[in-house]
């Protein structure tokens, strides 16, 4: 038997049982397609999240008391003394202390309740922020306790709509401040909160709050790039100063947080990765279901195929002729199904990310090669195994047995 004969026998076989071929292919399309789609959505999402945080410098540390999340409830533990001591560490730079104000901000009839940061110019370096209009806070503002304010882009828009805020005077609590700058938008929903913030000089906030002991927050960067070394320096210094005996480095025992963005990003990375894994799991289940479908269709058609195999053997087909024909049939089905599934899923995934990009911005399509090859290989293996298994069994029968008794 020529190879071309086997190929055409396989093609004719597929054509003769169009419905079965179609259903098998569909099972593979769905199985492979859903995995590729889910994993690509997961990967795109992961990449999106990471791109949101990657503008932040991983070397930046944030230090604050535990309980800072409940703004306004004075949960305080970091002192001016701590600030002083931290400044003296050799592994830190760009120290930016902050005291928060909870006063409302008013301009004309507009009023917002933003997060008001009383801080120094270093905060902008640590947070990689740039001015869109005007300028940032500077040392003179702090030294002179000037009533100036820098607005996050969203805060500026909320208060001033389309007018230029630079030089305008607004009210924070009962005090008047002059707007000297507007920040560039962070451009990501994840950092949207930062766009609504308002920045005033540290000395001003300190005076308004009447603080002499505690500060709310410190941002700084590690010097020399060894984040872990910096973290250990800060943590042991603060534990010593706060009389916390914590040799086992159990963060639950501390009354403060000291965390680098790098750690935060790792956490985000872990979360998004588990989302991807979860989606992959769901996809894996659908691949399994698809596989069972393929299996089912292949097995259901055994009766007819067995008769066909018996007939082919009766007219002289060898075992290997039969096996090769069924192998080819299964390969063609699974390949077509797999390729259509992959292309369909890539197309659909791309479309979905485009739509999401329109809505959220900053989303690009991502897919890994493994996410394509793995489901493809699985489908092909399932297709081959269950395409060939019945054929193998039938090919071992005597022709009359396979044809069924007449």
């Amino acid at each position, binding site marked *: *038997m*020529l190879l071309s*004969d086997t190929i055409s*026998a396989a093609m*004719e076989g597929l054509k*003769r*049982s169009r419905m079965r071929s179609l259903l098998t292919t569909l099972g593979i399309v769905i199985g492979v397609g859903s995995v590729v789609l889910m994993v690509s959505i997961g990967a795109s999402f992961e990449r999106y999240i990471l791109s949101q945080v990657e503008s932040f410098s991983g070397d930046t540390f944030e230090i604050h008391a535990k309980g800072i999340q409940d703004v306004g409830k004075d949960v305080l533990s970091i002192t001016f003394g701590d600030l002083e001591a931290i400044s003296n560490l050799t592994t830190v730079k760009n120290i930016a202390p902050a005291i928060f104000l909870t006063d409302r901000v008013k301009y004309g009839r507009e009023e917002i309740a933003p997060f008001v940061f009383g801080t120094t110019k270093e905060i902008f370096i640590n947070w990689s922020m740039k001015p869109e209009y005007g300028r940032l806070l500077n040392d003179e503002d702090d030294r002179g306790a000037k009533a100036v304010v820098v607005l996050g882009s969203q805060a500026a828009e909320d208060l001033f709509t389309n007018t230029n805020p630079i030089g305008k005077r607004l009210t924070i609590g009962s005090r008047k401040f002059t707007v000297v700058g507007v920040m560039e938008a962070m451009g990501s929903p994840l950092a949207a909160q930062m766009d609504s913030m308002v920045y005033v000089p540290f000395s001003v906030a300190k005076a308004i709050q009447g603080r002499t002991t505690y500060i709310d927050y410190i941002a700084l960067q590690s010097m020399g790039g060894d984040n872990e070394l910096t973290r250990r320096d800060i943590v042991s210094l603060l534990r010593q100063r706060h009389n916390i005996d914590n040799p086992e480095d159990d963060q639950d025992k501390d009354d403060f947080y000291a965390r680098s963005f790098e750690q935060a990003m790792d956490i985000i990375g872990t979360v998004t990765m588990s989302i991807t894994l979860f989606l992959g799991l769901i996809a894996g289940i659908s691949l399994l279901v698809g596989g069972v479908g393929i299996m089912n269709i292949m097995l259901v058609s055994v009766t*007819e195929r067995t*008769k*066909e195999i*018996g*007939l*082919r*053997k*009766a*007219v*002289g*087909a*060898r*075992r290997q*002729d039969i096996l090769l024909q069924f192998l080819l049939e299964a390969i063609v089905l699974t390949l077509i199904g797999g390729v259509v599934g992959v292309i369909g899923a890539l197309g659909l995934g791309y479309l979905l990310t485009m739509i999401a990009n329109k809505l959220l911005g900053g989303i690009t399509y991502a897919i890994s090669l493994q996410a394509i090859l793995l489901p493809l290989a699985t489908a092909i293996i399932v297709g081959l195994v269950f395409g060939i298994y019945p054929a193998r069994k039938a090919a071992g029968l*005597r*022709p*009359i*047995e396979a*044809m069924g008794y*007449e």
Partner: protein
Amino acid sequence: MSSQNNPTNGFNGEDSPLIQTKNLYKSYFNEGLETKVLFDINLTINKGEFVAIMGPSGSGKSTLMHILGFLDNHTEGEYEFHGKAARTMDEDMLAKVRATRVSFVFQAFNLLPRASIYQNVMLPLIYHPIIPAEERDSRVNKAIESVDLTDRTNFLSNQLSGGQKQRVAIARALVTEPELIFADEPTGNLDSASGIQVMKVLQDLHDSGHTIILVTHEQSTAEHADRIIELFDGRITRDTEEFKTRWAVDEDKLMK
């Protein structure tokens, strides 16, 4: 007919009888249950014979044909084909014998479903190790013509009447022109005109040297044969030419 279809390799030689069974028994086993179907079959059929097997329904005619045509195995005794014992043939050898030396017209036709007449008749040729691919088309057309179905060549098998299916099955059996053709009630579904036509095809094959073994219930069909074997309850109860057959072997030997 061309000798290329009758390769002798693997067989002891052409002077042995084409078919010889010695004390052949056949039982079917279904879930441990034994159904004895054939008993002590001793049969010699020589090249060029035209044998009709007759007997009541269930007497084992089809079973015997399937064994002789290498579609099934027997349970006990010997079956020798050209002097070579069937039970010594391996899978590939059996496939080759089925492809080149014997063909079968099944009682239930066994056509490929949803395949055209052309594809059905082509089927044995794609497994034939000798007939060149270029010859296939003309052979298929010739075989289809011989059963008078040329105008239906591209009809699908499920678009055919019972008689037409039977004729396709016959065309498929003769397309490789094997030395031995089995036909299990080849005229069973045909009107007398088509039946006569089919018998003429088989008669022509016989006249050109092919050995034909057929099962029939009809006396008129059996009359084409020069030997009638009757089965009853799995045993041979009559063989019209038992003596002649022996004599023919001797004559064959004398000719050498």
